[in-house]
């Protein structure tokens, strides 16, 4: 019940400051930058726009799995209901075909549609607001080269009062800093570029930075957060809780190839980020992003993912476990469905991307990502070492999956309390 109370309380706060917020909104509504004529796109602009569209990772959200790119329809399950992304192909009726440059820029910078309606901040305009007008227009130019597809928006399913769009104006009044990115002169241009790639375009913080009660991003930058059943891990430079101990090579491989041996394999939402966005990074942007990530202040939040040297997994060979007094039910699930690819020593059998050793997923005490990967598997991908994706194992019963998770965590020597069938049922609620 704790969260209910929290949310209700924050709503009261919002309601109490309505007048102030309205004023604030009005003050913000006149930005001279958003009133320029449309420019004629050059092929160079379109090419730049395509690259920026990838960096801004538009596609991952604006398509359903396996669906037509940029036509929207993807569901976002939030605590207050379900939102659907929209069609951003240049279809005049159901897409953005009639939008002017100004319209597009206003949406990115302020979260407002041409008809004045506020967009929900699941669309990351609080990050995109930092994108320069030039880059925004480049993105639009590229989107306008796509094949227009008729794809009407799905109706959002939000609880009252969250289904009242006017409320967002108030929220924006509080939490939207309508300001473009300004380089910090104290830092190198490389780090500044990395900041822009990470925060303005890549909107990493939208997932990795914890939110406050009012659902805005807190100042605990990149300290890790959960959404839609997944945990976006701590990516601060903390050596134990974050990625401070990862070598440059590991970090680069993870970002560009989605897999760093002994560190992690990007799956779920992060897998999509690599698939649609990060793997396209040019070398200098990749290096800039890496440099920027190193500057994130360490925060000891979350959990430590050290390989436990004394675990059963470490003692096993690739093909056989060590003897135990009792065989847990979860071990039987593992040997039926998991061992063929992951190996008893977690080393990965056929594809090294299937290695478990060192993955934060198996040490996370909440088991959130572990559950989601078991339930949904992974996507097929052209990334190296992923010729065959992991199938979803949602047909296992809740009890069996709980057994499996509990076994795996005991097997690898990670912490976390035992989960039950109910936790698996909860994890199933998220439809990706």
């Amino acid at each position, binding site marked *: 019940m704790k969260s209910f109370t929290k949310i209700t309380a924050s709503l009261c706060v919002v309601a109490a400051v309505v007048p102030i917020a309205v004023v604030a909104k009005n003050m913000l509504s006149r930005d001279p930058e958003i009133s320029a004529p449309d420019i004629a796109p050059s092929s160079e602009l379109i090419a730049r726009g395509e690259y920026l569209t990838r960096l801004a990772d538009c596609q991952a959200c604006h398509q359903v799995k396996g669906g037509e790119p940029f036509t929207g329809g993807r569901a976002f399950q939030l605590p207050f209901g379900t939102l659907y992304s929209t069609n951003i192909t240049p279809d005049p009726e159901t897409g953005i075909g009639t939008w002017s440059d100004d319209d597009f820029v206003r949406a990115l910078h302020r979260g407002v549609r041409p008809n004045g309606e506020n967009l929900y901040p699941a669309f990351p305009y609080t990050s995109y607001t930092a994108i320069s007008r030039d880059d925004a227009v480049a993105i639009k130019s590229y989107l306008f080269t796509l094949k227009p597809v008729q794809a009407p928006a799905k109706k959002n399913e939000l609880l009252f009062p969250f289904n009242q769009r006017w409320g967002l104006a108030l929220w924006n009044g509080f939490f939207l800093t309508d300001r473009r990115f300004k380089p910090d002169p104290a830092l190198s241009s490389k780090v500044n570029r990395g900041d822009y790639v990470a925060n303005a375009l890549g909107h990493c913080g939208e997932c990795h930075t914890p939110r406050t009660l009012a659902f805005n991003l807190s100042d605990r930058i990149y300290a890790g957060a959960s959404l839609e059943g997944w945990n976006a891990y701590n990516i601060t430079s903390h050596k134990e809780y974050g990625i401070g101990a990862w070598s440059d090579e590991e970090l680069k491989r993870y970002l560009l190839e989605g897999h760093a041996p002994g560190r992690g394999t990007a799956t779920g939402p992060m897998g999509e980020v690599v698939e649609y966005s990060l793997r396209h990074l040019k070398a200098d942007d990749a290096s800039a992003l890496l440099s920027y990530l190193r500057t994130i202040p360490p925060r000891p939040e979350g959990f430590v993912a050290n390989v436990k040297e004394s675990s059963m997994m470490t003692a096993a*060979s*690739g*093909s*056989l*476990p060590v*003897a135990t007094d009792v*065989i847990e039910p979860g071990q*039987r699930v593992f*040997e*039926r*469905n998991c*061992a*063929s*690819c992951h190996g*008893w020593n977690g080393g990965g*059998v*056929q*594809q090294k991307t299937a290695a478990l050793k060192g993955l934060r997923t198996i040490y996370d005490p909440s088991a959130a990502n572990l559950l989601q990967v078991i339930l949904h598997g992974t996507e097929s991908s052209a990334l190296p*070492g992923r*010729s*065959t994706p992991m*199938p979803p194992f949602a047909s296992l019963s809740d009890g069996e999956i709980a057994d499996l998770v509990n076994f795996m965590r005991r097997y690898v020597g990670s912490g976390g309390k035992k989960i039950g069938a109910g936790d698996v049922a909860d994890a199933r609620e998220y439809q990706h």
Partner: protein
Amino acid sequence: MRSTFTLNINDERRTVTAPPRMPMLWVLRDLLALTGTKYGCGIAQCGACTVHLDGKALRSCVLPVGDVGDGHITTIEAVGRTDNGEKVQRAWMEIEVAQCGYCQPGQIMAAVALLNERPAPADFEIDAAMSGNLCRCGTYPRIREAIKLAATGKTDAMRTLVIGPSADSEVKEP
């Protein structure tokens, strides 16, 4: 897209031209006509495609040819040349494990790999090594028994009589 690979298969050098992502299963079956290795699921859930890479059991349906390198691939066609392979195949015949037989090459390859690592496997090890291999005919009890027979030379299971000129004139009870 396609590259040329020189592979070590059953102690022979075989050269194939294939996309690096092409699974070994199809390299063996469709490019090299080694059809003993079977297709069952394509997602490493049935084990019908099990081969050895340097003596270890792998699911060839998810093993890209580009990842094999200099490793030694052994298939059902040649596993009988190894001691454990010969022992396992003999045990498989003695207590007649196979029914339809389609999954058996994979079962045998998994069993041989198990014996390569554990000459006398315990039941839990048989479970651990063999539970990834499906058999729709349900020959599991005999697979377990045949592995034990191969490992120890002993079994309580019914032994088959081999058909031959001498076998039926003086039939002895098994």
